[in-house]
């Protein structure tokens, strides 16, 4: 007989998780419920984390921002307008019904390479915060937390509390490829931010590998190209089309796609190339307009 645990506070939830490490967390239900509805999944217990006020928090602490695992995509779109790529990714999730329920904690916990929030967290160099009974927390860089397709470093007695990052200053975007403008699991997705403060480019790819991929080589290439063009010092300076194309090639080369029901590896790699070219062009245009 399956049990449903209904904690009202985070402490209570962590105690329950310690006592029932096999309990599967459920928040918005967008991943868990369909498995239950189709008889594909019968966990011994479910633990409802959707009522924990601690997980619904967003706050700045010093120069860092904390996003609670239970913040829904609808709330991100309404409230976190300072983080444009995160808002764009959130708005591309499912439909209004899904965005009213789905949470960033769910994207992290499910750890699908197609999770829309994940490339953004990767570009932000976010750290994932995990909690355990007794007030213990540990923090892992996103790349150590996401260990593989649908695999994470979460221990059985832990819950995902949220993610930290240092807000980046500079233009950026999230874009994805799919068959519709809504209700789409990404065939390929990309987040790019030009970090004006540290003079870096940050690029992450979703849905084109076993987990989220940072295109490190392409990042250094474009940052160096901007330095030689004098673009970091003068936002009106753009990059030659050849440099943008070369950046797109290097991003495409970073992808590790497979063929599956949603698309072929060749199509996905080409998608990365297009998304990379467009998002760099948008960012350069945003800089020019801001200048």
């Amino acid at each position: 007989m399956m049990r449903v645990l209904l904690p009202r506070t985070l402490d209570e939830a962590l105690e329950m998780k310690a006592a029932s490490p096999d309990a599967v967390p459920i928040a918005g239900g967008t991943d868990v419920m369909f498995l239950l509805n189709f008889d594909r999944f019968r966990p011994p217990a479910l633990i409802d984390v959707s009522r924990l006020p601690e997980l619904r928090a967003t706050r700045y602490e010093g120069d860092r921002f904390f996003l609670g695992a239970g913040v829904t995509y609808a709330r991100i779109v309404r409230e976190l307008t300072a983080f444009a790529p995160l808002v764009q990714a959130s708005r591309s999730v499912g439909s209004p019904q899904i965005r009213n329920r789905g949470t960033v904690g769910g994207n992290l916990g499910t750890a699908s390479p197609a999770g829309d929030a994940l490339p953004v967290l990767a570009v932000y160099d976010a750290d994932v915060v995990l909690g355990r009974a007794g007030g213990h927390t540990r923090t892992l860089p996103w790349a150590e937390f996401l260990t593989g397709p649908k695999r994470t470093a979460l221990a059985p007695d832990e819950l995902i509390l949220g993610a930290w990052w240092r807000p980046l200053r500079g233009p950026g975007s999230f874009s994805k490829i799919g068959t519709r403008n809504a209700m789409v699991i990404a065939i390929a997705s990309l987040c790019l931010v030009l970090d004006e403060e540290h003079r870096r480019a940050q690029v992450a790819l979703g849905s084109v590998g076993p987990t989220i991929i940072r295109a490190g080589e392409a990042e250094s290439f474009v940052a160096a190209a901007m330095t030689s063009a004098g673009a970091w010092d003068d936002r009106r300076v753009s990059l030659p089309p050849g440099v943008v194309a070369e950046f797109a090639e290097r991003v495409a080369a970073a992808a590790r796609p497979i063929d599956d029901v949603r698309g072929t590896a060749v199509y996905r790699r080409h998608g990365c190339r297009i998304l990379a070219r467009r998002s760099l062009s948008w960012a350069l245009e945003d800089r020019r307009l801001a200048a």
Partner: protein
Amino acid sequence: MLVKLKVNGEWREAEVWPGASLLALLRDQLALVGSKNACEQGECGSCSVWMDDALVCACLVLAGQADGREIRTVEGLASGDRLHPVQQAFLESGAVQCGFCTPGLIVAVADLLEHDPAPSDLVIREALAGNLCRCTGYAKIIDAVHVAAEKMR
């Protein structure tokens, strides 16, 4: 497990299997069959209801998660024989073909108009992106949203 929840203004109780969805509770235990059971994975919007004023797919809410919450379903829209303006607009616009997606669409449109009394076509398309009509009657549905918006002004 026993779930107590407020449905269309009235407190109700239902004994459900712990893995049951809110949709199963509404349909099988409370006989509120207006919310339709189609895809059971949040793709089609046929089971759209409000939970604490947020539009959700009832098939993706665990029944236990609805304990103590306030649910509004399509059955709560009409007052007696007087249809809700969105229902009336769907009738007048011919926005109903087989009718299966209609309850979910009516709830989603009512939710949209509660937040935006005069939505553009683009806003309507985005707001209804999670509601599928397999008769593909979308043009009339979008007409109906404008008619309903006019009635509610």
